[in-house]
């Protein structure tokens, strides 16, 4: 019996690896195949000839680079805003007790299940009134607002891990609250801030729905929107460059995610369940 368990486990693991990994492999392989090969009925995982040109073609394609620029601007600015705004608030959330904390934590949990479809209609109207639909600034504000709950949750976990004694020692030495925050708390928080920033960046970089609703003119499109327009007219699109563009779009997210992998383990629930 025991002899059979291990092989069976490996067979199961192999199935998971194929299920999870094969689509990725296929996308990467399609990104280096020629159009002729992609449209032929002969289907191979490895390309017959390596057609790196797809990447050049994807980059030369109308709008791809500029929309990647838009995505980068939106993601970087909203990440900076999220950190700037959420850091002080997360400190309060972690350190103070009572109604503020309860309300904050409650709202963070609710925001995880926010009915975006209901919110997006008035949000569109509000932003239109102040002239911020079809503008990157509007999208930045929306991404900032909707990434903040999880960022707050991550950050307050890191703050809570800093012993209060350390701060009190700083206060005893005559440091004002702000000095204590700057000299003691923020340096200790740095790794947590980096992880949270990466999370915010990836959320914004990947985001599709708000961008779809808010942005109308192609010069404002973010990368996901531009990529989705490429597959609209099915006949026209060249699959190779599309796959290449998709690979490029996924790289920043995958890199950041693998760096913060350890911090995500457990994630929201580990805290929520125990807390």
């Amino acid at each position: 019996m025991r002899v059979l368990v291990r092989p069976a486990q490996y067979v199961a693991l192999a199935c998971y690896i194929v299920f999870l990994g094969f689509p990725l492999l296929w996308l990467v392989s399609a990104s280096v195949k020629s159009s002729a090969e992609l449209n032929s009925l002969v289907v191979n995982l490895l390309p017959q000839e390596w057609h790196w040109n797809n990447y050049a073609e994807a980059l030369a394609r109308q709008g791809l680079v500029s929309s990647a620029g838009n995505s980068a601007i939106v993601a970087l600015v909203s990440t900076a805003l999220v950190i700037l705004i959420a850091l002080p608030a997360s400190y309060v959330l972690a350190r103070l007790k009572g109604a503020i904390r309860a309300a904050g934590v409650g709202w963070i949990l609710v925001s995880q299940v926010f009915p975006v479809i209901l919110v997006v209609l008035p949000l569109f109207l509000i932003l239109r009134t102040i002239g911020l639909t079809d503008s990157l600034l509007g999208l930045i504000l929306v991404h900032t607002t909707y990434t903040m709950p999880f960022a707050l949750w991550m950050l307050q976990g890191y703050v809570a891990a800093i012993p209060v004694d350390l701060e009190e020692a700083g206060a005893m030495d005559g440091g004002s609250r702000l000095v204590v925050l700057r000299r003691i708390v923020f340096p200790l928080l740095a790794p947590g801030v980096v992880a949270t920033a990466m999370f915010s960046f990836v959320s914004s970089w990947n985001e599709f729905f708000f961008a779809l609703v808010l942005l109308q003119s192609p010069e404002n499109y973010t990368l996901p929107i531009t990529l989705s327009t490429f597959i609209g007219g099915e006949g026209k699109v060249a699959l190779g460059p599309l796959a290449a563009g998709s690979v490029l779009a996924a790289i920043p997210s995958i890199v950041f995610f693998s760096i913060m992998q350890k911090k995500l383990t457990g994630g929201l629930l580990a805290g929520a369940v125990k807390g």
Partner: protein
Amino acid sequence: MTAVTSPRPPTPASRPGRRRGPSGLDRARRREAAALVMPSLLPILVLSVAPLLMGVLLAFTDAELVRQPDYQFVGADNFTRLAGNSLFWDSFRIGMTWAIAVTLLQLVAALGLALLLNSGLRLQSLTRVLALIPWAMPPVVVAIMWKMIYSPNAGPLNAFLGSLGLPDDINWLADFSTALPAVIVVGVWVGMPQTTVTLLAGLQQIPPELNEAASMDGAGAWRRFWAVTMPSLRPIVTSITSLNFIWNFNSFSLVYVLTEGGPGGRTMLPMLFTYLEAFKNRNIGYAAAMGVVLVVVVVLLLAVYLRSQFRDDRAEKKG
């Protein structure tokens, strides 16, 4: 997590050089806290709480998405109209099928993977990385990728089936009978990683002594799973299932890019239906009513589910 934030010791009254009493200090501290929280509260109030309330109000108007909007309150008209809209209820049923199927398959697949990752096999780090990538990828890229997999002519899925001598001309995403199952598989692929990571974290918290003790008592692997592992995992399973259900029910991008709700509305999730009503047909009052109905139903379903879990929990503890 909260255990670390022990309550602050009261300020010693003997501290010299403080003129303010404890209440003054409290007030100063409270003002300080408010100042620190305010910057994050403002965008939340303006861009998330206010829109939610406005959304509910919109549901009772005949608002349209035009330049000079002219709203009339129409009472519950939208809701009575919605009750007779069979297309909406078809979409609602599809949304339920999608959300329940994806959530259950996710749970089963993720639990299997988490157990494998927790049993000291080789290839663990490879699998861990692979299990993370779908989570990180932009949904649009996931959709483009799976469109290629499902491609009727040059797709690897049909080629594989063909090599086994099975029918190899299925147009997975355009066939009435295969479109919904096909998008469900993609939904599982995307959502599995997060569930796996969460369950794995839960598995690692189970003290190994529990399993050892059960082993000593002669319990086999199957019996240990049901008697030790599952009961310990239960709170995590309940929360991740509830969250997954809501996330899946609210999901939009993936199916929007994969099928746009087609063929013939077979994958028209309620979020897509509502989006089209609002931004293509421009009836935002009516669309808001749909949104309200969806929220209410999900909250009710969840309340019933959590209540039943809670009751089982108590029954077990008493028994």
